[in-house]
């Protein structure tokens, strides 16, 4: 089962499940047999599903179920799951693993690739830790802990995440009555504020309007309502004192064939320090690149190597480092530690907290509830394009937030 769904959205559930293995009646697909096969699978595995639903209209959690059933249809003796919970809310995760554990009990060998350590502890029998393409540690789940696994992943002690300090409460970013986005990924009538020196976390399952929110703030899509930085909509458009960490580093954040130096000024190419008349000040660009490399511990042979040659973690550190250059007033961080190892993630998180301590307003959008809980001063829960809950300080409650993320009130 792949991390990213391999489903045909315009086909029905049974068509997706039987795709490539359709029972035949002469030249035709034997629809009745196919549908009854799907119904039988659903019943045997305790997965509730409507075989005739259009896949693209299903919620993410149910689509995941379709993915799983497609694999189960082959009656596998070995089942490989690649990051199966990346797009699921806590309740959906529990449902998925209940099924998986049942399968294991009935004799299927199951291999789960995941970076969520709590899932490892909760649902597995044995753990292998991979680092740089090698297995570096093996444990029995009952005899290990998330801490021990994390240390093995990093290859030493976890870097300490920076301490947060008390900061002011001057309003910095304000979003009022924001409506933006198209069809399934809209946000509507969103209002919130981020103060200087505050990290506001948007908790939510992927696909609940986070991308529309981020794109509207970045000025990438049209919107109605107001988005203002220090009371001005223009300041955000000029990108002065604003840092943005886009969600997809490969497509949205970096030019992979370019060097670190060239990438260090992407999005900043027109700022006064970089643009001199019509020319690019490459010396300034190099100074910036070296500053990022040093502060974010970007491992590269030189600032002139193409970023394609860097590891994902180093690319991500470059991306966050660029967004934090020059002490911005506001940073939008969309999945800032996506797909990187624990050590790099801790470094990125530390730098974000340090920026907050210096008075930067940070809007953190993450699908990892753990990351939100670790970083945010205030948590807003997003569900179907609306903010359904707001928690700060001692009110922050993992259970309540998790239920709101799944749409349970």
């Amino acid at each position: 089962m792949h991390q990213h769904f391999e489903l045909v959205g315009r086909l029905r559930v049974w068509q997706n499940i039987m795709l490539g293995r359709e029972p035949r009646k002469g030249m035709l697909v034997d629809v009745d047999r196919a549908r009854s096969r799907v119904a039988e699978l659903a019943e045997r595995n305790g997965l509730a599903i409507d075989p005739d639903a259009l896949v693209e209209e299903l919620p993410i959690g149910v689509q995941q179920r379709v993915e799983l059933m497609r694999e189960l249809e082959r009656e596998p003796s070995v089942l490989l799951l690649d990051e199966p919970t990346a797009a699921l809310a806590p309740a959906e995760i529990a449902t998925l693993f209940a099924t998986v554990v049942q399968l294991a009990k009935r004799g299927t060998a199951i291999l789960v690739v995941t970076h969520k350590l709590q899932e490892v502890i909760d649902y597995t029998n044995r753990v292998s830790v991979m680092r740089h393409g090698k297995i570096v540690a093996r444990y029995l789940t009952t005899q290990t802990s998330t801490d021990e696994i994390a240390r093995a992943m990093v290859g030493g002690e976890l870097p300490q995440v920076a301490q947060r300090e008390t900061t002011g409460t001057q309003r910095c970013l304000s979003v009022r009555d924001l409506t933006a986005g198209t069809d399934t990924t809209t946000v509507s009538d969103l209002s919130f504020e981020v103060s200087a020196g505050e990290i506001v976390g948007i908790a939510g399952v992927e696909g609940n309007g986070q991308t529309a929110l981020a794109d509207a703030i970045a000025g990438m899509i049209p919107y109605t309502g107001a988005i203002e930085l220090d009371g001005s909509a223009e300041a955000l458009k000029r990108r002065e004192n604003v840092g943005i960490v886009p969600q997809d580093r490969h497509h949205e954040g970096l030019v992979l064939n370019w060097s670190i130096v060239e990438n260090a000024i992407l999005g900043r190419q027109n700022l006064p320090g970089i643009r001199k008349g019509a020319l690019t000040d490459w010396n300034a660009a190099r100074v910036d690149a070296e500053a990022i490399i040093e502060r974010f511990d970007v491992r590269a042979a030189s600032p002139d190597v193409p970023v394609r040659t860097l590891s994902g973690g180093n690319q991500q550190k470059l991306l966050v480092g660029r967004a934090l250059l020059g002490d911005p007033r506001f940073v939008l961080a969309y999945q800032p530690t996506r797909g990187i190892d624990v050590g790099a993630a801790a470094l990125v998180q530390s730098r974000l907290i340090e920026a907050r301590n210096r008075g930067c307003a940070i809007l953190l959008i993450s699908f990892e509830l753990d990351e939100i809980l670790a970083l945010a001063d205030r948590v807003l829960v997003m569900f179907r394009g609306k903010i359904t809950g707001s928690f700060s300080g001692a009110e922050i409650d993992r259970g309540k937030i998790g239920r709101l993320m799944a749409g349970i009130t």
Partner: protein
Amino acid sequence: MRAVLRALAGPAGALVLAFVLAAVAMLIAGVSPLDGFGALFQGSLGGRRPIAETLVQTTALLFPALGVSLAFRAGLFNIGAEGQLLIGGLLAGAVGAHFAGPGWLVIPLLLLLGMVGGGIWGGIAGWLRARFNASEIISTLMLNFIALSLAGYLVAGPLKSPLASGAETAPLLTNGWLPAFPTLGSLSFGDTRLTISILIAIATAMVLSFVFTRTVFGYELRAAGEAPEAARRSGINMQRMTLIALALSGAVAGLGGAAIVTGVLHRFNTQLSPGYGYTAIAVALVGDLNPLWVCVAAFGFGILEAGGLAMQANAGVPKDAIHVIEGLIVLVLAARRYFATRATGAPV
């Protein structure tokens, strides 16, 4: 140093392989490759006149190849250099036939008109792409046919010279002629077709190289070509960039059309280009879209174009064989890119 070697290895390797394949083809056709290539190089590099003719062909290819390179660097497949070249030449020829004045005024004006003509022609495709997301591959290609028909109609009708027997504009007044290439020591080019347009072409390449590497505009143009989504998110107005890049690309090709009118033909007719705008795509690719390497590639193709006629006359190898060689070079180069992509997962 390594970068230089690597840049050489690609196109040079392709060139050698293409010549080997061409030699095989000649053997099959019953011609000694030695005779064939002998005639080719004798006719392109064997003396003052052949060299001058090679440089004339180099220039004719260099302008549209630079234009194509600019568009390709912006991620836009401008295959309409042929049409942009024609319209540029047409505008320069149409005005030049009637405009008298001192050379220092007329020549820059005609060259500028060439850029305007080509710029408009490229700009149309740019506007269609920016406004309606119409594929520039289709529109630039179609605009080639429109340009050819339009130019053919105009020189056969409204712009036809009453004195000329064929379809062409009236000749330029001599003050619109580009000066001959300067005398180098004892080498004079006064009796050849070589003019200073080769110097203008090389200067254009140097300007483009500077724009690509040093200016913010060049940076944004390359970003748009390398990673459109990242470019858009960095604040680049992609519609505007598309329009500007295709217009500029057309302007450079159009400048080439005007250079042929003012430097070689001294009038406009539709025989201005035997397909320079199409060969230019190959030249741009062989030159790795790098303006300075494109100059080298254009010289290589100039040798083939100029030497091809001599080869036909003296070795009995049809001139079409040249186009086979050109095609083979592109093919080998494309294959090399493909294999490099497969080997490293990264396009070269």
